[in-house]
């Protein structure tokens, strides 16, 4: 199994994702520069967090037009697991691979803190190893994390069990319906604002993030 972590100009959490996948989950992982990304070489892709293109115009919009995203779309259509973390989620949403939009936090400030979430659905490429309705903790660090989608689309997400994670106890950014992470209808493309790669080592605060990557391995089997 080979995983690609796609690196855009301005990606920051790319090395972090590679470290967790390679050194902790122990899966063959490559950091791939967006211009050189060829999806046929990989079984899964991770779009890491950061500030691709400086978040200029809108977070994720410029990266969404990168040729690399056409290839990510192909992977998605092939049913391969694709994970968008934070800026990666923003890129997936701007590319149309996931519905909705990520708007400015209601506090209008960048927020870096650990949050609690509830696992709403274990039926996806990245949540299948969690226990349904368990609470997990991971850190967020973003300026534009407020999930928004139109009413009819929200109904669709709810009905089709596409809301995977909801903020629990406190909604840090004003996301609609407390949504922290969602998946597509085929359940192989997942986006979330919190950072699982920052919650994969106990010494850094917790290990609830590891399960997300382990779920990916399970899905590929």
């Amino acid at each position: 199994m080979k995983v690609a972590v796609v690196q855009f100009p301005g990606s920051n959490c790319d090395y972090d994702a590679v470290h967790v996948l390679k050194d902790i989950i122990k899966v063959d992982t490559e950091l791939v520069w967006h211009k050189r990304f060829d999806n046929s070489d990989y079984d899964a892709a991770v779009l890491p967090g950061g500030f691709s293109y400086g978040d200029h115009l809108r977070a994720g919009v410029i990266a969404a037009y990168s040729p690399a995203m056409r290839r990510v779309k192909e992977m998605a259509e092939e049913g391969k697991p694709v994970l968008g973390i934070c800026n990666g989620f923003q890129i997936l949403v701007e590319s149309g691979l996931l519905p909705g939009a990520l708007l400015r936090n209601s506090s209008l400030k960048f927020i870096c803190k650990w949050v609690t979430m509830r696992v709403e659905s274990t039926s996806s490429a990245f949540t299948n190893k969690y226990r349904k309705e368990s609470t997990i903790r991971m850190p967020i660090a973003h300026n534009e994390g407020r999930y928004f989608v139109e009413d009819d689309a929200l109904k669709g997400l709810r009905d089709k069990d596409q809301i995977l994670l909801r903020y629990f106890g406190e909604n840090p950014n004003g996301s609609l319906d407390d949504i922290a992470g969602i998946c597509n209808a085929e359940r192989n493309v997942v986006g979330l604002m919190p950072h699982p790669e920052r919650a994969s080592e106990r010494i850094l605060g917790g290990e609830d993030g590891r399960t997300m990557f382990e779920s990916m391995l399970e899905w590929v089997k």
Partner: protein
Amino acid sequence: MKAVEMELSLTKEEMDYARKFLKREPNPLEWAMIDAEWSEHCSYKSSKPVLKLLPTKGRRVLLGPGYDSGVINIGDGYVATAHIESHNHPSAIDPYGGAATGIGGVIRDILCMGTRPIALLDSLRFGSIEESEHSRWLFKYVVRGIADYGNCTGIPTVAGEVEFDESFEKNCLVDVVCLGVGRKKGLVLAEASNPGDAVILVGGSTGRDGIHGVTFASKVLTERSEEDRSAVQIPDPFTKKLIIEATLEAVSTGYVHGLKDLGGGGLTCGISEMADKGEKGIEIDLLRIHLREEDMIPTEVMISESQERMVFIVENGKEGEVCKIFDKYEIPYAIIGKVIRDRNVVVTQNGRKIANLPTRFLANAPIIPRRAIKPRIKKAKPKFELPKDLSATLLRLLSSPNIASKEWVFRQYDHEVGVRTVVKPGQGDAAVLKLPNGKFAAIKVDGNSKYCYLDPYQGGASCVAEACRNLVAVGAEPVAMLDHCQFGDPNNGEVFWAFSQTVKGIADACRSFSLPCIGGKVSFYNEDKETGKAIKPSPVIVVLGLIDNADHITTAGLKNVGDAIIVVGSTGLDMGGSEYYRTLGIYEGSPPSIDLNLEKKTMKAVLECIKKGYVSSCHDCSSGGLAVAIAEMCIIGNLGARISLEKAPAGRLRVDELLFSESNFRFIISTEKPEKILKVLKKYGIPSAEIGEVSAGVLEFSSKRTSFSCSFQDMKKAYGEAIQRLVEG
């Protein structure tokens, strides 16, 4: 062709010296270059003789002051680099841009050594945010500027401090620190030492930004400063991020022989300093430089401080290999010249030499002797009655901006990116980060201008002591230090006296703790020209420490109900400059006395207890004294405590003095093994005692005559909400 009015900051003596040395009159371009390089900011002409007092050697020190960053050996083939920068004057007029570009500058200094920046710290000083709308505005936007820039470049801002005092109303201080890590064999020095090597200017284009930036920093702010538009720099962290990745990739080729960031003084300072260090010369052709604005004259090009530019010295013949990397990241670059054998800085245009100055002359400004005059400061002993409601006093202190939680600040900083941050802001006395060799780095920045105002020598030494105590409290061994000395106008004898005394205090403390200074800065002219009011003396100290074993990492929050609470060190009457006095409107008194020997022994003792596994939590006592320290441990740990004050080793003190005195050399420890700890402390001769225990609810203090308590909710509210309430209303 528009000419910029050349207002030189050089003194008559400096100009005479230049003419004498060169045996001719420099042309306008050359004058501008000399002016930039000899500015206080670039040359340290007032401060060099005093800075010589600081110890710079140590067994881990690879490079000390004089390079872009200090370098220490952390073992296993790895090195750490650290540097401190400030952007005081720009932040005073454009807090967002000034602070952001300050971060940009300090990152470059770390990058220049070929190391990867892994952490940032900020040390900020403003006027009163309780009373001044202006200071609130500066505070808000400085924090946002640092947040936006640090977050975008993906470097965690892991620790910091903020101090508020009226003396900073017109002259805020914005200090930023960067820590880097890399392999020893990948270290690059800012030296142009091989004739024939290519000089490549990489990054943003050159425009009129920041012209007179360094001379701006070396002048006192006047009312006209708000109109100084060309001194404002536009932050561009996205380009910086690309430059970080491209630089590290380029360095790994092995063909980069020298690296220098262009900051203060622009190209002039950059190339003259590199040539001087390499004992060679550099020749550049102005026409090769990418200009953003079309009608720039040579002087403007040579002193422009446009951001995000670096100079690479690349091995002759290997330019293509390195430039391929810049192409990958789509960063503009231009080969602008070469290293030459003659020790001159030569600027050409259209094949004609338009400036030609000896490197050694340009890079070494003549020292200006300064007079030091000791001022007369009254050391009064204020008298007032014991407050009736001590719990209200404690809550007031907890909500005082100098003490209150800075969570409003650090929540805006991404402190987790990089997956290295083990002890995060708000958890312990210093930040602790993972290092690539399995060890850990601890880092903290500290200053206290109130102490330094009352006694610069003691204040300087106290700052070093406090920073070291903070490191020891997290289980780290201090190994290196940076200092940034910020004062008013050095022409003022009293200011210069304070500066010399402060540096003496810092030097003595460093020598006593075997702590080498690996870098630092001096910023003068932090003074309001209209009122002549200078800032209080503000040395800012950064201490870097190492932890070998993850088990030693200690945080400040109380851990277990039933743990014993021990106070390490004796409390004396050290109220001058204290936060308690400040809340009562008292500004005189003697600042905390310093006993370097005792301080050293105490730190050694506490570190031994931590390494032996006896300590559950540890916090140093500083602002607000013992009471605030214990309250903070309760708030962070979500627990309470019962404290018997009469057990604390102390002089003859009234109860409020015992609670809020800011004596040095004290720690609070909570532990399951009090007898073991007391035994170690006794061995070192440190006065200490078990004064209470951790409880589940309230914080209670009792002594023979008084007792009072504070509820956990009240303390958390006072401490946690104060800054937010003041800034956001």
